């Protein structure tokens, strides 16, 4: 008995003593405004970069990490099952196959950033290919003009979706679902009695995926130019920030980033040169990505997209023309869908009545989501289209090499998509507890 009483007394006397300093601590940050210990500012230097990175990962901001890990795992598994998976020819094929769906996925990333969805991209791709084929092949219109008209048709279709969504107020899900049905009907009508229209030899569309820069200087040159441009952009930014006395990236971080970029670029260039050279399709896809990324991250328009995706009402009160942003984003998605459709037509040898049907739509949306763009708007990167489509195409390529039937491919791609969304949801929950969205 006396023991317990003593203990209780002990804790009783200890408590006030323990509480007093704690109170003092709580008051101190308010009184001394020099450095608030609660403020988490990234330290300067490389060590600061590492601690910041660790904190982000623990806080659930995984970024592209899971996808890159996933790609490495996919490469290791398929390479161990079939030694041809990482062969030059196979990698070159992946580089060409990703272009069409990847460009479509770039458009989907725009729409997802708004927090909306576009279910019509597959049908719009089909319409784009059909418009080009009917104009150029059947009616003998100038090839380039037909390509431009096909892409423009996609822009008009997307803008129409945007109009019904933003101006009339129909949910985007329904508008684009109607579009999914309606445009595939238009596609079949355009194709008329012919089941498919083959791409003629030497046409623009055939070159889209059929042309390779065979000179090895092309691939290496592109690698050199992009690495230099990347390093220069980082250095100029750091210099301007230092001049403005703002925290800037340490030189060590710039070196590491540039080195990683250089390794990726030169290995890719080397492997592509081992095969047929630098594919035109990949160059166009990368160009679309670079332009889209710049538009989204560095322009007022991109900022407006993020603002509308994050809080449309706040964006409206800030004077942003929310309707216009929404309509234009759907226009971009439609335009990129039609453009991607031309690549698909090029790959499959022509426009068909079923081009863009089947799992094209799912692959495109899955690519954007697997790459790490949130389904709920306001968060994501354009580059997630590249990473996501790489995952999907690698799996397909690997399973094709193993001679697996398409039903197995569907199941595995479905599982990967589910895994990606699970990672997204779990990391979002971690982020909520860590106070980040």
């Amino acid at each position, binding site marked *: 008995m006396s023991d317990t009483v003593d203990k209780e007394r002990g804790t009783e006397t200890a408590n006030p003593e323990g509480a007093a300093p704690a109170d003092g601590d709580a008051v101190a940050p308010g009184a001394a405004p020099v450095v608030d210990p609660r403020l988490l500012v990234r330290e300067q230097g490389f060590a600061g970069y590492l601690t910041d990175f660790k904190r982000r990962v623990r806080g659930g901001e995984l970024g592209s990490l899971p996808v890159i890990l996933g790609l490495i795992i996919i490469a290791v598994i398929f390479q161990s099952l079939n030694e041809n998976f990482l062969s030059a020819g196979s990698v070159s094929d992946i580089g060409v196959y990703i272009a069409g769906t990847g460009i479509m996925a770039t458009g989907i990333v725009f729409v997802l950033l708004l927090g909306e969805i576009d279910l019509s991209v597959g049908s719009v791709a089909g319409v784009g290919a059909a418009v080009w084929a009917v104009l150029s092949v059947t009616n003998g219109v100038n090839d380039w003009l037909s390509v431009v008209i096909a892409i423009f048709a996609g822009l008009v279709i997307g803008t129409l979706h945007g109009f019904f969504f933003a101006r009339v107020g129909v949910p985007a899900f329904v508008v684009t679902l109607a579009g999914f049905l309606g445009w595939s009907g238009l596609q079949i009508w355009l194709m008329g009695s012919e089941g498919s229209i083959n791409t003629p030899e030497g046409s623009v569309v055939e070159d889209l995926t059929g042309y390779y820069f065979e000179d090895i200087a092309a691939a290496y040159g592109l690698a050199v130019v992009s690495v230099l441009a990347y390093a220069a952009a980082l250095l100029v930014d750091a210099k301007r920030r230092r001049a403005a006395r703002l925290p800037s990236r340490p030189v060590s971080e710039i070196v590491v980033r540039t080195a990683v970029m250089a390794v990726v670029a030169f290995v890719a260039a080397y492997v592509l040169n081992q095969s047929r050279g630098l594919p035109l399709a990949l160059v166009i896809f990368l160009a679309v990505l670079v332009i889209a990324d710049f538009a989204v991250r560095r322009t007022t328009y991109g900022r407006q997209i993020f603002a509308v995706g*994050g809080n449309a009402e706040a964006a409206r*009160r800030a004077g942003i023309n929310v309707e216009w942003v929404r309509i234009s984003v759907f226009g971009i998605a439609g335009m990129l869908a039609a453009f991607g459709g031309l690549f698909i037509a090029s790959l499959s040898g022509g426009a068909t009545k079923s081009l863009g049907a089947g799992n094209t739509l799912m692959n495109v949306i899955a690519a954007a989501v697997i790459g790490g763009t949130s389904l709920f708007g306001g968060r994501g990167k354009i580059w997630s289209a590249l990473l996501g489509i790489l995952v999907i195409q690698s799996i397909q390529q690997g399973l094709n090499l193993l001679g697996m039937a398409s039903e197995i491919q569907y199941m595995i791609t479905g599982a990967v998509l589910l895994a990606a969304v699970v990672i997204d949801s779990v990391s979002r929950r971690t982020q909520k507890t860590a*106070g980040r969205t």
Partner: protein
Amino acid sequence: MAKEAVLALRGISKRFGAVQALTDVDLEVLPGEVIALVGDNGAGKSTLVKTIAGVHPIDDGTIEWQGGPVAINRPHDAQDLGIATVYQDLALCDNLDVVANLFLGNEARHAAVLDEIAMEKRAMELLDTLSIRIPSVRIPVASLSGGQRQVVAIARALIGDPKVVILDEPTAALGVEQTAQVLDLVERLRERGLAVILISHNMADVQAVADRVAVLRLGRNNGVFDVATTSHEEVIAAITGASDNAVTRRQARTGTAGLEKEAAK
């Protein structure tokens, strides 16, 4: 009252259908002064503020800006004059960082390309002069506390160099320390010579920072009090109408107690 009013409302009336929300309301706002706007729920505080902010155009009366009559028909008109409003729901984009939120709709840019460095620099300077402490100007607003979000929203109102800042219930959802932060900020706005219209339900906040208290009751003026010389109870009485009810009216008829109260007001 030596200073000229930066914003003066004279005989403002506003009707919504069958509801007369504001009747003949007067309000003068002086530069370098915090005027609290108080009143019971439905007294017309929000309506009055929205007429100033241009959300609801007025039906009757005149609005004077620095001595001259002006028309405020759209939110844009108010912003152009130099009236900034911070609404209760803050209207921040959670996914954007602090700098992006501060400059949303008002970005520094070369052609269409954002000038992030200029914006970040200006944001740091602004936050420094207001002694606002936040973890980093490059973290998403979602990771800030309620008080920090409130001060970011107020700082954002200052980007356009306004002359009048309207704060709608800035401390309603905040804890003790965060409320203190926001009230400090309100005082700093006054030191910078801005006129602040503060809507609040919390009399402690009002007494802490306001110079004058304007009371609205049932859409009408119910007195303007000097905070330094007025007791808490008198203001509350004006808000609730305790100085004007059946008992006081009866006293006014029968005796002089009610008259004295009227005179005090």
